């Protein structure tokens, strides 16, 4: 089973990994390299001539106030969403591993929003916010819902958070359920025999042992929330007068609507580096929290 030479080991590796590696290289790596080349031109996305402009586009990124505005808005949004998603997912997972009747059906039910896809969710909630809630608010005379949440910049931000939390809680719940199911029950039994309350059991046994799930869930929700576009577009196309336009939508508009593909690509590259940095830091610190079961 153990190949003696390097050549044999490489050959074995390639037999299994070559198709995937090929697809990855052509679909992800090649466009990335071409994109980096494009950041140094002034292509408008369509014409057959492009001029080399060096690092001018990168300087433009620093000067683009809208990019930084949407980036910090996205940061705020990511912070709030990731925290809420994980809390909600954890609570639902905790409730659905406590052995109540029908918990498997309920798990499927909570997971369904994630299957709908961002565009459908966006349109669904757009309808709810613009027609259903004002109707309810007018009927019950509840001033919070009297107007369409999507036409006010601050409320539209929270509307977006609500839709995102609704979309991803189910998916993260599955991850937490898997983590909680792996906690050895004899540990929990031993604790309750020794007189531990439910809260102490949760705090000292359950929480430390689901840190791997927490790491994965935080990583996934961070990455997905940073790159949000479909819900952003379908819900209200970037908010009343672009006030909830997240950074991915700004990059798309800069590249395809304003026809400045070079600048858009440079901004996308910045975004890639920053997301990689944030998630890398998150993973590094989370690994330190892991406890051996």
């Amino acid at each position, binding site marked *: 089973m153990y190949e003696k030479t390097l050549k044999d080991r490489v050959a074995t590796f390639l037999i299994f990994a070559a198709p995937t590696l090929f697809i990855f290289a052509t679909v992800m790596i090649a466009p990335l390299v071409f994109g980096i080349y494009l950041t140094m031109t002034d292509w408008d996305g369509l014409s057959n001539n492009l001029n080399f402009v060096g690092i001018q586009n990168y300087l433009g990124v620093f000067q683009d106030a809208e990019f930084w505005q949407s980036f910090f808005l996205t940061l705020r949004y990511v912070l709030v969403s990731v925290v809420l998603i994980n809390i909600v997912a954890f609570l639902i997972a905790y409730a659905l591993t406590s052995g109540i009747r029908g918990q498997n059906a309920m798990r499927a039910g909570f997971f369904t929003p994630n299957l709908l896809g961002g565009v459908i969710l966006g349109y669904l909630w757009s309808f709810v916010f613009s027609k259903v809630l*004002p109707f309810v608010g007018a009927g019950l005379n509840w001033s919070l819902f009297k107007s*369409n949440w999507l036409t006010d910049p601050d409320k539209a931000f929270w509307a977006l958070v609500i839709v995102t939390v609704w979309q991803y809680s189910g998916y993260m719940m599955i991850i937490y359920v898997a983590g909680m199911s792996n906690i050895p029950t004899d540990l929990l039994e031993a604790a309750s025999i020794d007189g531990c309350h439910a809260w102490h059991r949760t705090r000292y046994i359950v929480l430390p042992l689901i840190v791997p799930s927490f790491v994965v869930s935080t990583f996934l929700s961070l990455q997905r929330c940073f790159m949000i576009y479909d819900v952003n577009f379908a819900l209200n196309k970037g908010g*009343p007068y672009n006030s909830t336009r997240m950074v991915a939508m700004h990059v798309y508009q800069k590249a395809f609507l304003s*026809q400045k593909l070079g600048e858009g690509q440079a901004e996308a590259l910045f975004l890639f580096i920053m997301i990689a940095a944030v998630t890398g830091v998150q993973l590094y610190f989370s690994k330190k929290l892991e406890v051996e079961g």
Partner: protein
Amino acid sequence: MKNMKKWMSLVLIVALFATLLAGCASQATTAAPAETAAGETTAAPAAKSDVKITFLNSKGEITAQLEEAAKAFTAETGIEMEIIPCPAGTSPFETASAMYSSGSAPSILMVDPNDVPKFTDKVLDLSQENWVSLAMPGALDAGSVDGKVLAMPLTVEGYGVIANKKTIETASGAAFDPSTVKTYSDLETLYGKISAAGVAPVKICQENWSLGAHLFSQVYINQSSDPAAVQKFVDDLKAGSVKLMDNKVFVDFMKTFDLMIANNYGKADPLNFRYEEEPLLLTSGQAAMWYQGNWTWPNFVDSAAADDMDYVFLPLVLGDDANAYGNSQIIAGVSKEMMIDKEQNSPEQQEAAKQFLNWLVTSDAGQKAIAVDMKLIPAFTGFAYAPEDPLARSILTYLEAGNTMPTIATLPADHWEKIGGILQKYLAEQSAGKGNHETLAQEIETYWKNT
């Protein structure tokens, strides 16, 4: 048994590999028929041809009618045509350039006039086509680059204030003559009479393309009757040498806009509407006027009563000078251009596309499709049909009297989106009583300087 296992695992590997290649194979076979149909497009009509062409439609209102026209074309010539709609809220340029990048450029693309120069090296030269001599004077200008006709105009459209004559007469209790509204004071009096009867005088269309591309273009177009002066104004804005607050047209525009906002239907939440709902307000008599163009008539037909045809266009009056340029004119011009791609479509597909464009304006079925089904004002002479809806007829009266202002085709690609957003913000703020003209002017000037 060991041989059987080895054989089975080999079959499994081959099967898995084959599914990987399946995707590549099917693409190769669908590309072939287009090239094997050499010379069959000029065969007798109604013979089933293997050529299939695609049409990128950026006019949402006519999608259904366009598909009917495509079916009629296929029945006559056997060439199949697929209509691809643009996603709502995106510009035709965005969709077209995305399709070019993905290698699936449409055979015919319908774009806005100011997008035509960007496709110069990708589209066919149509100067030798039959319909070039049939075009109305000036209709081919926007679609021509360097003297070569690159695009066929689909229609001439106009926009201004659509007024429901019946609603106004019921509210004011007297007959309404559109030519009596020539100044800001006239407009204010009219609004007063209408709102006294409990009807909202106006509904401002809050869509960013309506505010940015149409309403605000009056600020540029009303500057002067000389297109060169208008262009200079736009160029000065780009250079940053214009102070909008010192510009009479802008100041008058803001005054009229503020009056509209104060009398807007649903002004408590002005942005909470959809474009499709707004014709309902006019047909149900809840609002009397709406700034929009004649392209919106199909949306009226769905909700209008059979006898409710009394709509007329009013100019957007700015300022108190009855003779000022723009107070008796409405804006009209070619609004959509159709071009044929030559880069990613085979010569047979290009011929089929040329055939379709010809059919559209010279054949009986095509002319009927444009004038009667899609209710568009044709940009060509010799049409056997004319649109019968009140909006198109109102535009035609302005066109025939020479009371139109040309549209401006040199605005930046993202103008409608960015300026529309700025105006939406102002609309929301002013409706709450917190609008500021200076801030608005500054934001617009900043946009132009950064273009």
